[in-house]
């Protein structure tokens, strides 16, 4: 439904953008003025967009010598109070794990966009959703989480990137935009004026030289066991608060659905066609689309569990989000996974076939 509304809006008021560029413009609109990154396909348009746009708004773009250096430059920029981001894909995103955990440990806000390609290993540049687990489990060592948002259109890439900066600051924690090669390369009209120009908030905790004040220390490690206990307690409290307040999702035709399709990002766009066709043929199927991938929108499942007995999880991987669906449902309904781990993009016909099969299952 939401798509119908968008189509009817005057296209003239919109800007035709690639998904990767929409992320960049969302960041700039949010007040991001520092970008550190390393080339990797399929995120290069975002990297190059920032290279072009940041100097126009008085910002700084710096190409790092590696993703390791890039995420650590981000750490330094965040410590200094800059609104900053980086982006990468699979192999580079893996390298950023050490920085993500340290940003979380030091409670520094920063945004990382992962434009997923297929793995494992060097993989291929073809689209996949196989970095879901890496992103939603934090990406690095230790007890921490990143806030993860999974947009499914250029408009959402724009708006949720903007939102990611707000969330990162609100919780003083890294936030991840989990995109993929399809979303990144796809061109769609974006209504830029839906968001106001924003700027980085004042951050009293940032280091810039102590001046006449007591010195500040951005700590990535506690000094004593007691400090460590308190440190992890604070983080847990913060993540509990996120779970309570930041679950985002979209429900489509779930009011009378006996089967609910669960999909995020680009797969939810493909699934929509299959869903529309199935509905047209009288199959009571709906869709639950997680938008926040961490925290996972467990409340949405509770909402539909009373009437939905089967959940068909469709994702472009060998079964990653399905684990979260099973945890959310806790054995109260059947969960079926349908997906492929990269190299093949599921077609609406294939998903339609699976919907019919699952609906007819004894």
């Amino acid at each position: 439904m939401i798509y119908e509304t968008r189509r009817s809006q005057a296209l003239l008021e919109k800007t035709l953008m690639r998904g990767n560029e929409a992320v960049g413009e969302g960041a700039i609109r949010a007040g991001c003025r520092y970008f550190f990154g390393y080339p990797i396909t399929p995120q290069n348009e975002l990297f190059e967009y920032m290279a072009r746009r940041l100097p126009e708004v008085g910002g700084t773009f710096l190409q790092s010598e590696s993703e390791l250096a890039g995420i650590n430059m981000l750490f330094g920029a965040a410590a200094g109070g800059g609104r900053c981001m980086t982006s990468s894909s699979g192999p580079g995103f893996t390298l950023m794990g050490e920085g993500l955990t340290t940003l979380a440990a030091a409670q520094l806000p920063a945004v990382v966009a992962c434009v997923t390609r297929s793995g494992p290993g060097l993989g291929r540049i073809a689209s996949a959703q196989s970095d879901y687990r890496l992103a939603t489990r934090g990406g690095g060592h230790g007890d921490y989480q990143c806030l993860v948002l999974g947009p499914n259109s250029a408009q959402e890439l724009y708006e949720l990137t903007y939102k990611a900066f707000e969330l990162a600051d609100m919780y003083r924690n890294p936030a991840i935009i989990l995109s993929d090669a399809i979303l990144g390369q796809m061109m769609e009209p974006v209504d830029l004026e839906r968001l106001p120009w924003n700027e980085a908030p004042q951050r009293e905790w940032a280091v810039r030289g102590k001046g006449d004040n007591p010195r500040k220390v951005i700590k990535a490690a506690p000094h004593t066991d007691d400090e460590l206990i308190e440190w992890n307690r604070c983080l847990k409290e913060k993540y509990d608060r996120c779970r309570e307040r930041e679950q985002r999702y979209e429900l489509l035709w779930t009011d009378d659905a006996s089967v609910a399709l669960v999909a995020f990002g680009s797969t939810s766009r493909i699934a929509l066609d299959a869903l529309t066709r199935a509905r047209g043929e009288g199959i009571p199927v709906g869709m639950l689309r997680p938008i926040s991938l961490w925290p996972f929108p467990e409340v949405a499942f509770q909402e539909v569990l009373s009437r939905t007995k089967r959940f068909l999880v469709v994702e472009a991987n060998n079964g990653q989000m399905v684990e979260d669906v099973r945890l959310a449902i806790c054995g109260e309904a059947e969960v079926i996974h349908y997906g492929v781990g990269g190299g093949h993009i599921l077609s609406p016909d294939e998903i339609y076939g699976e919907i019919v099969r699952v609906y007819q299952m004894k």
Partner: protein
Amino acid sequence: MGHSHPMKRIFEKPASMTDIPFPYCPGCSHGTIHRLVAEVMDELGITRRAVGITSAGCTVRNWRQFDCDMVMALHGRGPAVATGLKRVRPEAIVFTCQGDGDLAAIGTGEIVHAASRCECITVIYVNNGVFGATGGQQAPTTLIGQKTTSYPGGRDPSFSGYPLRMAEMLSLVSPRSYIARTSVHDVKHIIATKKAIREAFQIQIDGRGFGLVEVLATCPTQWKLDPVRSMERIVQEVIPYYPLGTFSSPQKEG
């Protein structure tokens, strides 16, 4: 008798140091080097706008020693963290303190590229030729034949490589950098080290480029030598492989 005149104070702790005692082993050079950095910060009047960056290893706790804003960086990533910080806060005086495991092993990429970009930062590189904090393993800087817990038979270059001379390597990277190697084994060299550290900060203050001082340091605990023998080893074995001097110095403006 009594004290009819107040005693003249002839020696005191630099204002840029906190009151927290050094955590270092007896005979370790780190304390001397930290003190020199603090003295230079006092003399240049930069403490209020300084931001120090710690690294992993024996320098990990030096955020407690300097009385200025501090950031803890991951192992080897100090120069990248310093880069991000300096780009956001160009008015700050940003320095890293890194050991040889940090700078010459895991952080080789970050230091080379920070130097090549001529980041306006100051790097204090403490080279004691061994991984100190983790228990005396071989560092990239460990001398040939030197025994470590990684290679108890001593470093054999045909098997585990040659010691890295970082100051010489980095001096090739950019003409707009000040790169020197000094030692703190006696008073004369301590004074020379202070002068070099001062120059490495001054080049940043003037916005002229990248400054790095490699300071040869002792590690009596992991060298299995007493402090005096450790100082003697610096002269007899370490300096012959790691010659002291200025390897790169930018043309002064004006």
